[in-house]
């Protein structure tokens, strides 16, 4: 039992940090530009695939370096030549464009790499146990993912709060017109933020893709959860994203291993047999519906408090 709790918590925290790496960019972009980028998780996927290709031909660590940079460049191009074009048509068009982009990225990946997962694996020298819990080895790579995410958070935080660039970015987020009036190149800032956001997602993909499956569906799978994180945490709030990511990460991790059900609960009051006979909703286990809960959470947040945990009332 204790083992389960410890391992689940560790896994949950790592998964949560991974989610944060991907959602950090999205929440920054939304907070600043009001654009909800459906293609954001595609950057995650592209990062994984680019890293895979570079790893195959050169080296894993080079891949980790190259992937985020290339993805950031793709992000900049997307913002400059595509998003900016439809900006004047309104938010609905932006949503549609990013939606279409996500579609296209998935198909392009399938074109070049096929429909099935590719064998992007961590290098052998990282394949060891960080420590042992109750006779089971805990893989170092999971810790590595967490470390990269933490490093990223610290770097972002320092960048935004301590540097001039960060100041300009934050100003542009609050009052873009004012920032522009003060002769800051706001379109450049937007482009930069979009690029950095994409690059972060790319880094997350490059790191995580070596551990989790790398397939054309990974953008879709992660993408919607990332939306949940961003909404629950509060659109535009980095701290909120972190909290929400950890919450959802830990929850998912625990829920997958728990067979609790309403019938089980009711058996405490002697109605277990009846509930099991009724079936349906009563016999659904937490592990099987664990996928539903994040969406339920997002739904509740959207309906009750759209600003999320730490976002600003918009």
């Amino acid at each position, binding site marked *: 039992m204790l083992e389960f709790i410890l391992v689940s918590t560790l896994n949950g925290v790592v998964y949560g940090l991974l989610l944060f790496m991907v959602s950090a960019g999205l929440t920054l972009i939304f907070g600043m530009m009001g654009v909800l980028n459906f293609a954001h998780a595609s950057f995650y996927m592209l990062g994984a695939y680019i890293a895979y290709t570079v790893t195959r031909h050169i080296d894993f660590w080079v891949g980790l370096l190259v992937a985020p940079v290339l993805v950031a460049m793709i992000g900049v191009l997307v913002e400059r030549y*595509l998003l900016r074009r439809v900006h004047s048509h309104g938010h609905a068009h932006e*949503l549609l464009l990013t939606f*279409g982009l996500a579609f296209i990225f998935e*198909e392009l990946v399938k074109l070049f790499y096929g429909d099935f997962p590719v064998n992007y694996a961590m290098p052998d020298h990282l394949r060891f146990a960080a420590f042992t819990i109750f006779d089971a080895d805990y893989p170092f790579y999971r810790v590595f993912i967490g470390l990269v995410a933490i490093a990223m958070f610290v770097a972002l935080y320092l960048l935004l709060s301590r540097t001039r660039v960060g100041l300009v970015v934050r100003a542009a987020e609050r009052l873009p017109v004012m920032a522009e009036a003060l002769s800051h190149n706001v379109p450049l800032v937007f482009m930069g933020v979009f690029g950095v956001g994409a690059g972060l997602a790319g880094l997350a993909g490059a790191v995580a893709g070596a551990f989790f499956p790398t397939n054309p569906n990974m953008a879709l799978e992660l993408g919607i959860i990332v939306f949940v994180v961003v909404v629950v945490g509060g659109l535009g709030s980095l701290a909120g994203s972190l909290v929400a990511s950890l919450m959802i990460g830990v929850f998912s991790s625990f829920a997958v291993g728990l067979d609790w059900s309403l019938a089980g609960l009711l058996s405490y009051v002697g109605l277990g047999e009846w509930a099991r006979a009724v079936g349906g909703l009563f016999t659904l286990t937490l592990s099987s519906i664990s*996928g539903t809960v994040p*969406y339920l959470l997002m739904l509740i947040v959207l309906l009750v408090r*759209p600003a999320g945990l730490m976002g600003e009332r918009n």
Partner: protein
Amino acid sequence: MTLVWRFLPLTLVMVVLIGLPPLLDVGLQNVMVNVLIAALFATAFNLLIGQGGMLSFGHAAFYGVGAFAVMHLLVAIERGGLDFPTPLLPLAGAVAGMVVGLFTGYFATIRSGVYFALVTLALAEMLHALAPHWEGLFGGEAGISSMRMPWGGINFGQVIEVYYLTLAWVVIAFGLLYAYTRTPMGRLTLALRDNEERLRFMGYNVHATKVVVFTLSATFAGLAGGLLAFSNEQANYQLFEVHISAQVLLHTFVGGSTVFFGPAIGAVIFTIFAHVIGDITRSWMLYQGVIFILVVLFVPHGIGGVLTEHLRLRTHIPWRRIGRPYAIAATAALLITAASVMIIEFLEALFSPRYFAARRQVDMGFPPFERFGYVWEPFSVLTWLLPLVLGIVGLFLLLRVRHQVAELWSEARESAAAQGRPAP
């Protein structure tokens, strides 16, 4: 516009829809059924976005719910001995769509814009995540399958019978949806889209109005799903996938959401396109995505919008003079399309598992590959020069003719505006 001209397109379409299918083979008849269903789904979707101004990313929820409702009825008839007229089965889809739509719409329409879109997405995803685990309602991962039972002397075993029943339902549904646009509620829906705040200050309960529009849209989406289940005799949780919501979005916007028949046009084109192209190339979804992006970027009102603009300004467009630029633009588009298709198909061939196997046989060299009935050398300059040249020529022509077309159009618009101005 004279009465004959107004009803001619519709009459032609009806003639084709009624008269053509018996002449087609079963596979194509099936495609026609899917075309009708897709057209209905898209038009139902457009009630929400094109008319009501509410963008939903989860319409698959009602589509799927409608399908499952019909499946349950089919099962009840087939195995449970329920006596229910087979032709009325799709109605169950509509009712299911209405009930679920009313419930979810009440909550979803509390929010608007991006938040609304996310709520609809969350609802569909919840169903998608829940369904494979809920055996009773959704048949778990395998889904539910059954069989259509004969009724009223008709077997309903043949595709052509299913087709005509689907046609009947779709025609009725389109009739109702079109009539809706003529009712006071239909006009209110447009006001909702244009300026919901003003509507509030003119004495209308905006939330209630939105719920009604949402529910109606869900009802017809459920009907479409019900027709699908009726045709396929099976339904599973994959009907709730975001790809389904994406498809209807694609159809609606490429066809044009500002015109009543726009989404239907988009649905017809894409469904037939998928069928025809899907057999030829594996990259057909990529093509769909590219077309969609191009439409969003350059033709925001879709095909329907373009057609109606031409119709609206038909007396002002200088047809003689615009003929040549249009022909050049069409040629340019053809060239660019050919170039893009060639490049994409070449890449697809080079990266396919089949080519990899072929490479193995020549010691990991780069053997020639076959496409479009020709053999190409992967590293030959000619292979890549051909599409490149086609593409560049096409682009060049397009850029040159763009200004001409734009000028002629502003001429047409000015002429129309001058006519609209009241006499001094």
